[in-house]
């Protein structure tokens, strides 16, 4: 992939959006195993209902991992400096999540040029599920990954 550079991007530039498939139980079970988060509220409907939820729901860190894909799909992970999110709403079964991001500002820290990205995931109803920021280092000139 050809990487974004400090000279090639501007404030307000949008990252290519990442569209996820509808959340289903298989996705949640796989993520439970892979992430080590075995909290039954995400994989066991009986447990979720006893806890007062309508059904199982997505792990917050699954949604954060999707936002990670958004960012590392735009710049190589080695350039990622910070990744901060707030979980604003539960992602339920059937939610169709899309991740988006845009360049909020450009900065220079300890001689390194960086872009601060505003990142967000929303469901098909336009409700924000996760919002946050990522900071990525940007090379000065075009380079091939």
């Amino acid at each position, binding site marked *: 992939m050809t990487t974004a550079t400090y000279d090639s991007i501007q404030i307000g530039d949008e990252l290519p959006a990442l569209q*996820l*498939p509808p959340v289903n139980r298989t*996705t949640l079970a*796989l*993520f439970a*195993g*892979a*992430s*080590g*988060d*075995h*909290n*039954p*509220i995400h994989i066991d409907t009986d*447990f979720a209902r*006893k*806890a*007062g939820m309508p059904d199982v729901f997505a*792990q*917050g*860190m*699954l949604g*954060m*991992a*999707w936002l*990670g*894909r958004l*960012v*590392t*799909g735009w710049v*190589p*992970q*080695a350039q*990622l*400096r*910070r*990744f*901060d*999110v*707030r*979980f604003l709403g539960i992602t339920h079964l059937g939610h169709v999540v899309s991740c988006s991001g845009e360049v909020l500002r450009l900065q220079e820290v300890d001689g390194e040029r960086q872009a601060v990205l505003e990142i967000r995931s929303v469901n098909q109803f336009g409700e924000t599920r996760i919002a946050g920021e990522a900071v990525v280092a940007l090379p000065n000139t075009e380079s091939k*990954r």
Partner: protein
Amino acid sequence: MIDKKWIGHELPASVLPIERTRLQFFAKAIGETDSVYTDAAAARDAGYPDLPAPPTFLFAAELDSGASNQLLDDLQIPLSKLLHGEQSFSYHRPACVGDTVTVRSTVSDIYDKKNGALEFVVKTSRATNQRDELVAEMRTVIVCRH
């Protein structure tokens, strides 16, 4: 109410070996298709010694070790009332297959909102590798809903 005596509590260290099949499973689970995360040759072409752990993967360390669940038990937060409020990572160097990462966490704050209807626990963590180099710093806010 969560006892504020836990502020300053240090969790036992959690050791997470970064393993190829686990990273490939994680990539599948999050729908990651970039070969850098699944194919060692592609990772080497991208400048890594082997597959890199994706940005959020190190959160697994304290889940695998049981340190996270032990903390919830200590604080008397049932899983049925647990929500994840915020999560931050700052990155210092990659963790790749073959590395062993150790995560050490401290409970840095406990507070409540809405007259105790929501309680918050802030955990700050440092992840180092087998050479004792800093890999990442993490900050987690967990929420107990009543």
